[in-house]
């Protein structure tokens, strides 16, 4: 879209480097020492509940807020001294923040005009980005004549036309309805693949983060709880918070009993469980500062393999949800949630009140720091 010579390619492989960033608002620590790196060209998400500091971090990267302490580099260059308007980043705001007095094409041209680009180049770039985001027919309209989804596309076009090193997206799809959100999620992903721009995306919607991101930083109370690919976060969550925030999870308190080879035995409210662990997991277990987590779909109600943990329980309720069924099963002193896929090849034929046997593979139980 734009001749690449306007921005010298930085040798750094990291698009954004945050080191020990802190930010306090009154008595609240919005950021309590955040360090993370965003790689060049990746789709990176900051995921967390509202008030976890993810938007503050985004605003600091954008230059719209300053940290109390810490260091920030964008493309390898220290960025904290640069005001927002000199940083090689652009933002898609949650409220879109389109200029109401300008038409769609003028909105998109704004950044280029600020760079004092020639009107010929502005027209060319604006048109091509409107084609890319499929809003060419809206060029002459004003923001108050647009639907939510259209505003979203204009806000996106207005940012990417500047070819930023990093595109910051603050809950970009938050104000849209579910169907449109799914559609635009897909387009956003396609666009990122096509442009190769680094995206830093803030969201509280774990489905959205999982579907879009190469890597996710899960944030809570001003800290990064865990950073990893969607698979890592789902399969090997490190903390209770991450286990609960991403996907559903059964949490059990446990006491370390014994350690044999790659497994530890843990006494829990549902009975004695064997858990497959790494060497770090053994230390954690022996220190007795942990909880256990089991995903509901990793527990099966029939056909367990040899070596599985076997538990006896009684079904308390069944919720049929189309693709899958959710069971609540009383086991020992605890309640366990179990999800079974309705494949059609089999029906379990279970009813509330039935006694069932639960099979849990030791590899599917994870140790969480508590």
């Amino acid at each position: 879209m734009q001749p690449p010579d306007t921005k010298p390619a930085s040798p750094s492989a990291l698009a954004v480097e945050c080191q020990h960033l802190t930010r306090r608002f009154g008595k609240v620590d919005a950021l309590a020492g955040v360090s993370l790196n965003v790689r060049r060209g990746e789709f990176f998400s900051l995921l967390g509940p509202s008030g976890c500091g993810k938007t503050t971090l985004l605003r600091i990267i954008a230059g719209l807020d300053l940290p109390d302490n810490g260091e920030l580099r964008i493309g390898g260059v220290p960025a904290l001294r640069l005001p927002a308007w000199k940083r090689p980043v652009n933002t898609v705001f949650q409220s879109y923040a389109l200029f109401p007095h300008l038409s769609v094409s003028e909105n998109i041209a704004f950044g280029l005009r600020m760079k004092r680009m020639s009107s010929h180049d502005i027209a060319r770039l604006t048109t091509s980005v409107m084609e890319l985001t499929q809003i060419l027919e809206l060029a002459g309209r004003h923001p108050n004549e647009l639907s939510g989804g259209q505003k979203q596309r204009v806000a996106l076009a207005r940012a990417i036309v500047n070819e930023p090193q990093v595109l910051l997206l603050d809950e970009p799809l938050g104000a849209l309805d579910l169907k449109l959100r799914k559609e635009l999620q897909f387009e956003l992903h396609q666009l990122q693949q096509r442009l190769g721009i680094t995206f830093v995306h803030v969201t509280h919607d774990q489905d959205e983060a999982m579907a879009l991101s190469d890597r996710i930083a899960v944030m809570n109370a001003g800290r990064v709880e865990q950073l990893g690919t969607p698979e890592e976060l789902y399969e090997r969550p490190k903390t209770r918070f991450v286990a609960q925030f991403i996907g559903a999870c059964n949490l059990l308190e446990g006491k370390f009993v014994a350690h044999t080879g790659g497994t530890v035995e843990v006494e829990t409210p549902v009975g004695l469980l064997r858990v497959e662990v790494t060497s770090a997991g053994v230390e954690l277990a022996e220190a007795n500062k942990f909880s256990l987590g089991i995903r509901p779909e990793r527990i099966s109600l029939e056909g367990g393999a040899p070596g599985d943990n076997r538990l006896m329980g009684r079904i308390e309720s069944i919720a049929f949800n189309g693709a899958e069924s959710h069971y609540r099963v009383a086991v020992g002193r605890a309640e366990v949630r179990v999800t079974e896929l309705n494949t059609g090849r089999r029906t379990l034929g279970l009813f509330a009140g039935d006694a069932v046997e639960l099979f849990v593979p030791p590899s599917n139980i994870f140790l969480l720091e508590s």
Partner: protein
Amino acid sequence: MADAIPQPLPKRRRIRRTVHFGEPMPPGAQTFRAAWLCGPALAWVTVFLLVPLLFVIALSFAQRGDAGEIVWRFTGENYARLLGHGALGFDPVQPLILARSLGVGLATALLCLLTGLPVAFFIASLSRRWKTVALTLVVIPFWTNLLIRTYAWQVLLAPEGWLAETLASAGLLPPGTALYPGWPAVMLAMVCDYLPFMVLPLYASVEKVDWSLIEAAEDLGASPLRAFWHAVLPQIRPGMVAGGVLVFLPATGQFVIPDLLGGAKVALLGNAVQQQFNVSRDWPFGSAIAVAALLVMCLSLWLHTRVTKGRREVALP
């Protein structure tokens, strides 16, 4: 998220019916009642505004008799004179009066805009309680008659007034200098008098400014100054235009302040009209000046509607 799927509202037919003492009224009766209610005001406007105005317009095409009486014979001479058509070729006196008045009006509007902008931003930044206090303070001068305020300026700006004495003792002014009569005194009083007309519509606009647009502009590479220019000023343009018109119109026709503080040496539209009607006893020419002033003001109002056309909100107070 998912639970926010909007529910379709039950369709409700809008009922067009006015309740009059509990009984529905037929539409014809509504029109009748509206006319009846508007009647007194309409009659007032017709008798005391419309008819005199038509009379003035008609008069502007009449002639002055030798003794100052009105001679009802059609002529365009009054307007020709206004445009500088004198007995001995071009006579700039009358066009100058018009130009000078427009200049005073424009200068007042501009100065009011420059001084009013910071005031409007300041008031908008206050807490709700202090906003009320500040807006009341802005309006308070209206409680005093314009004439009295203008005489007060005379006292204040006189050589023995404290302002002149303070400036003199600070060495900024030779002692015994009067700060009036003169143009600075006139403009000072004009700006003070018309500032509320500018501040109120400006404040109404500033109050509604979406400040997140400044962040958007800076994010897109605009320096703070350019962000203000491109993201904030367009938002308060309706208030600027409304305030400008509200100040420009009365300031153009103002003659009390230029007379009292300018030393009654400079002719403006207002005192030119007054002079024609009283001293010169040339009612037709006075009428022509009045009609010309009216046209100028209509033109500026038309410009105002053109500028604000197509915008949803016109910030007239």
